[in-house]
């Protein structure tokens, strides 16, 4: 491979890999579909079915289902692969550092979905009644397009701290100084630093909630709104009695989707504090244990706990989904 800094040499080599990769993929898929199309009539239907679903199913089986099952097993082994029963879980619940991590994760999953949904909903209602809706929507939705790493950098500059008496370069501390306060080390002072990380996630997810809820609000029939209006309902009553029931399914989807995203959050903690100063969460700790420290057993145990936390949401969603397919 190209030497570090050999930009142009590396460039051509990399684009070569890109082209070869795309061509190889197209050739394999094209050949499979061509062959099953030319297969003898008997058994052709089965062959075609296999050609369409097998690539995806094999990849999912080998790359997701088998690994997930294996991780569940690894959670009961130590770093050399010996079976050690529940030791990893005992370790987890006796280490103050890991307990903090678990509590932090719960705080994240309690605050992020509720606050981003609430702010997103309020914002969706506000812009529904104001001019320049498109621009206002785009501004709040934009963080969705930004990587968590990018968001982490953006907010590190917002939170940047300089000792009292020096010129502040972070806007938040500057505002505090302007109103006569003392500059704070937002990312270092525990336990509040976790809240400041959570704000970043809320900043990202609010736009997602807002876009879905805004679409749902517009889906509430205008007739019902006008009727409640004629009945003398004020803005708030109308919101609680007409709008909220009308968008309930979307609210559920928004809260569950954001909850899952929050449980898995990793990049924000990684870029902003690296999990130091008592800010780690399960997803980050799992990475640290498994890939930085080589403790695959402990990392797997953390991943399993994460899965168990997501499990109720999975079950709930599968049930809703089953019901919908029956209706169809």
């Amino acid at each position, binding site marked *: 491979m190209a030497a570090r800094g050999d930009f142009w040499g590396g460039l051509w080599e990399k684009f070569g*890999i890109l082209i070869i990769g795309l061509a190889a993929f197209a050739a394999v898929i094209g050949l499979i579909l061509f062959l099953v199309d030319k297969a003898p009539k008997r058994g052709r239907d089965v062959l075609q079915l296999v050609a369409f*679903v097998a690539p995806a199913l094999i990849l999912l089986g080998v790359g997701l289902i088998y690994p997930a099952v294996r991780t569940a097993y690894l959670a009961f082994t130590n770093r050399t692969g010996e079976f050690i029963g529940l030791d990893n879980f005992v370790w987890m619940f006796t280490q103050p550092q890991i307990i903090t991590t678990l509590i932090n994760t719960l705080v994240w999953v309690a605050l992020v979905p509720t606050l981003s949904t609430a702010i997103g909903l309020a914002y969706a209602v506000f812009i529904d009644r*104001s001019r320049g809706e498109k621009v206002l929507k785009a501004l709040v939705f934009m963080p969705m397009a*930004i990587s968590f*790493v*990018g968001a982490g950098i953006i907010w590190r500059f917002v939170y940047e701290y300089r000792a009292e008496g020096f010129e502040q370069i972070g806007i938040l501390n500057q505002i505090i100084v302007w109103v006569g306060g003392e500059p704070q080390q937002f990312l270092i002072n525990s336990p509040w630093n976790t809240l400041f990380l959570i704000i970043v996630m809320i900043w990202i997810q609010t736009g997602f909630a807002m876009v*879905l809820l805004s679409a749902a609000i517009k889906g509430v029939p*205008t007739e019902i709104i006008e009727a409640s209006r004629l009945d003398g309902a004020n803005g708030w009553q109308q919101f609680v009695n007409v709008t909220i029931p009308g968008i309930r*399914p979307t609210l559920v989807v928004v809260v569950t989707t954001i909850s899952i995203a929050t449980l898995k959050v990793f990049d924000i903690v990684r870029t902003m504090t690296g999990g130091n100063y008592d800010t780690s969460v399960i997803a980050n700790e799992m990475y640290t244990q498994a890939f930085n420290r080589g403790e695959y057993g402990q990392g797997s145990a953390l991943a399993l706990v994460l899965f168990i936390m997501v499990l109720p949401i999975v079950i709930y969603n599968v049930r*809703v989904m089953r019901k919908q397919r029956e209706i169809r």
Partner: protein
Amino acid sequence: MSYANAEAVAELDEPIGQKGQPQSKASRVKQRLTSRWATAAAIVIAFIWTIPTFGLFVSSFRPADDIRSSGWWTIFTNPAFTLENYGDVLFTSGASSANLGSYFINSLVVAIPATLFPIALATMAAYAFAWIKFKGSAAIFVLIFALQIVPLQMALIPLLQIFSQVLGISGSFPAVWIAHTIFGLPLCIFLLHNFIAEIPSEVIEAAKMDGASNTQVFFRIIIPLATPAIASIAIFQFLWVWNDLLVALVFSGGTVDVAPLTQRLAELVGNFGRNQERLPAAAFISLIIPLIVFFGLQRYFVRGLLAGSTKG
């Protein structure tokens, strides 16, 4: 939510009051409800939401010494702009330089196949689940649906072992492509199935009556009709891959040969103090592609989002 409903919602997303009857009624309601307080509150929130990004954007054009010594807002009283930061992080080579040019190329080489592969495989599978009757189809589909919620963390360690010990490809582009393909498949299959299942059955049955095979139906009917859906989901997958850090960290090996921008950025942040004058420009280089995609294709992006998530 069905394809048709999602379309209707996307329709409503457009400026209200330009089309026929129902819209004008909506606009009447809207007019009456337009309140100055709501507008003011919306503007305040939009302002708060935009300031952090705006600040970083301004910083990226300030001279390095200024970034270190004063806040970006001082630019209004003491204007000084430069493109030096961008040149520095993109093209300066050397052991301590950011070298983002190379990582930018890596991100492209990772993201293009990692978008096309899962979309292609997912379209095929979605067609089979929607239009080929077979035993266990419903059960397998529900399983795939459930898989999109399983945290990636559950699969990382064994998959890495497969890549390094069985296939011997860990730390290469194909490893990252395959990982992204696998992790993207459940959601892509689910979303595309929602669209493809809504294609009127007469169209497909007519083609089959004329003797078309599944492959022919797939290429001549499904792909052309599903192109808008495929495009909007592709935008999603592309942004997801471009912005990903976890998969990249685990499977790319972390070298300048393979690792994407996000990983290099995360490294630079690791030495925040030392890299302070570089970070704003570096971050903006990583944001530029998603922002172009976002502002250019926002309509399709939103449509994909609505199709997937408002399954009410």
